[in-house]
């Protein structure tokens, strides 16, 4: 039985700065606080009164690792506010760039943050320089996967981080199609490496069962990150523009971020890869469905650690989707679509790597931002992370050593892949026992 106050100052290998306080009294968990600690930058206030043209690039600076998601959500919100229709080529190239984002971002999380847990080591820096070592093989797989994801975004939108080419209505310049065949060859060569990673995360036996409430975008035609309606576990469908009304904001007084629950039942829900694969696995690319069939049989799953497996499978889907687009698309010269400037409100909802990302832009008749709102995935997951951790500690307090509990808490939080700024670095846990 644990007594007294215990503090862990820093848990690493997550995205951003957060804390965890566990209060134990008389052998029971009395309170648990998951505390997001990144300082706010008030970017949605900073864009007010500014021309809408500049806002997407500025708002992509919300996050380093998923800046493309913020960029595309902001572009979509403003385009819808102005009634701008995109060409098929623009939609397809954005989807392709998004494949690159998912490949790189998921690989960073899975191989740099989670893999050490699977291998039983502290860090990828501890992986031996031994070509026969599985960790060495997987680490070098990750370099190839991340590099190729970044190269796709480089070719299509100019950079993997804060991409300069996408603009309202399309692209400032079309990509160079002469670079596509090499990308296709590299993607094909990458598939066995991606499948090796999927098998590793499939065979990982960690388990934490959570409730059955999830939410994600669904497009009945394809496994989609950009277009679709929001669906939840009851099958309820909500158009993107009504998504905000579907949520109830919860002020979390000890956290720098708000939390969210379903507006009707006030229940917590999870967004992210686990939600997407649970709801949309039937829509994955046919090659992914065929080659990952065994691994997909575990879905739908309520095991939090299967978020890692779902991300690994999404990498394969994005590889296969990118191969198709790069092989088939014929690039035509196009200028960004434009429309007469007008007052209006637009909503852009996309699936960021970590789940549903919402941007709302209200524009005045002079083309200035009158109001702006952003809801990020980790804010939505915050309350369920807290509840699931509390359940874990309650069930294991008397069964596991303090060191095991701390280590498992870190692993569980990493499995959710939270993004606090939304971004990286350390988490502080403070245990308060009395």
């Amino acid at each position, binding site marked *: 039985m644990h007594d007294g106050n215990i503090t862990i100052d820093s848990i690493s290998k997550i995205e951003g700065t957060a804390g965890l306080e566990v209060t134990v009294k008389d052998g029971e968990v009395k309170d648990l606080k998951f505390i997001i600690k990144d300082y706010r930058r008030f970017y949605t206030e900073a864009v007010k009164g500014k021309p809408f043209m500049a806002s997407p690039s500025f708002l992509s600076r919300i996050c380093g690792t998923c800046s493309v998601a913020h960029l595309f959500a902001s572009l979509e919100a403003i385009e819808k506010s102005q009634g701008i229709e995109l060409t098929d080529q623009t939609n397809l190239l954005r989807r392709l760039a998004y494949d690159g984002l998912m490949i790189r971002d998921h690989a960073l999380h899975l191989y740099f943050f989670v893999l050490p847990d699977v291998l039983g080591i502290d860090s990828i820096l501890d992986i031996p320089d031994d070509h026969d070592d599985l960790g060495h093989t997987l680490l070098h797989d990750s370099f190839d996967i991340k590099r190729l994801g970044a190269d796709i975004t480089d070719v299509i939108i100019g950079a993997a981080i804060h991409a300069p080419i996408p603009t309202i209505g399309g692209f400032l310049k079309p990509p160079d199609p002469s670079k596509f065949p090499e990308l296709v060859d590299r993607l094909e060569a990458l598939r066995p490496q991606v499948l090796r990673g999927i098998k590793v995360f499939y065979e990982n036996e960690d388990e934490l069962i959570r409730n059955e409430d999830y939410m994600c975008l669904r497009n009945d035609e394809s496994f989609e990150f950009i277009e679709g309606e929001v669906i939840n576990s009851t099958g309820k469908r909500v158009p993107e523009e009504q998504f905000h009304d579907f949520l109830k904001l919860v002020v979390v007084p000890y956290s720098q971020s708000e939390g969210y629950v379903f507006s009707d039942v006030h229940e917590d829900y999870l967004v992210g890869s686990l939600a997407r694969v649970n709801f949309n696995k039937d829509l994955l690319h046919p090659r992914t469905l065929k080659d990952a069939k065994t691994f997909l049989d575990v879905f739908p799953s309520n095991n939090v650690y299967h978020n890692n497996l779902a991300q690994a499978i999404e990498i394969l889907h994005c590889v296969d989707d990118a191969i198709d687009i790069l092989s088939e698309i014929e690039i035509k010269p196009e200028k960004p679509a434009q429309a007469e400037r007008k007052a209006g409100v637009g909503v852009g909802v996309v699936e960021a790597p970590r789940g549903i990302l919402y941007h709302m832009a209200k524009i005045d008749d002079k083309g200035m931002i009158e109001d702006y709102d952003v809801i990020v995935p980790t804010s939505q997951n915050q309350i369920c992370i807290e509840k699931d951790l509390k359940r874990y500690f309650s069930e294991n307090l008397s069964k596991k050593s303090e060191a095991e509990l701390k280590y498992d808490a870190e692993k569980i939080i990493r499995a959710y892949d939270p993004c606090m700024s939304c971004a*990286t670095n350390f988490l502080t846990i403070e245990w308060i026992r009395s």
Partner: protein
Amino acid sequence: MDSVDTIVPSKKLAIGWFSFTCSEDSTILLTELLNDHWDEWKKVIEFRHLRSLKTQNSLKDLDVAFIEGAVSSEKQADEVREIRNNSKYVVAVGSCACTGLPSSSRNDFLSEEMNEKMKFYMNHFNYSDKVKKLADVIKVDDMVEGCPMNVEVFLTVVDKYLDIFKIK
């Protein structure tokens, strides 16, 4: 006899990497640079403090501290000073550390633009009145500007300190 490629220097450059208020894009870029520089850097660099990649970190006796992000509170300022006191050199990385922007955008808000929600967070979590660039708080020896950091400049700075410490 070892080939030149396999000789590992007796001393490695002890570096720390730290993030404060920013999008942490330069940290992400660092993880991307590892795709191509892993084998080279493992021989000459000890990542003594790098919370994005390891749990067991130490601030002690750093040769070079790379710091990204602006400083939003006195608590962060104290942390930055502690890093300075434990590092022979400090390099500001990325636009927020070098110039404050864009994280310091709130410095330009007029008082009437500060709504109750903003005031709640600033008061409740002890924000400083102004967001500061790194050089406003501690001495900075080098800067790698850019949003995210300029890769060529960063690699040049790394080589510079490897030379200073006679590591390669």
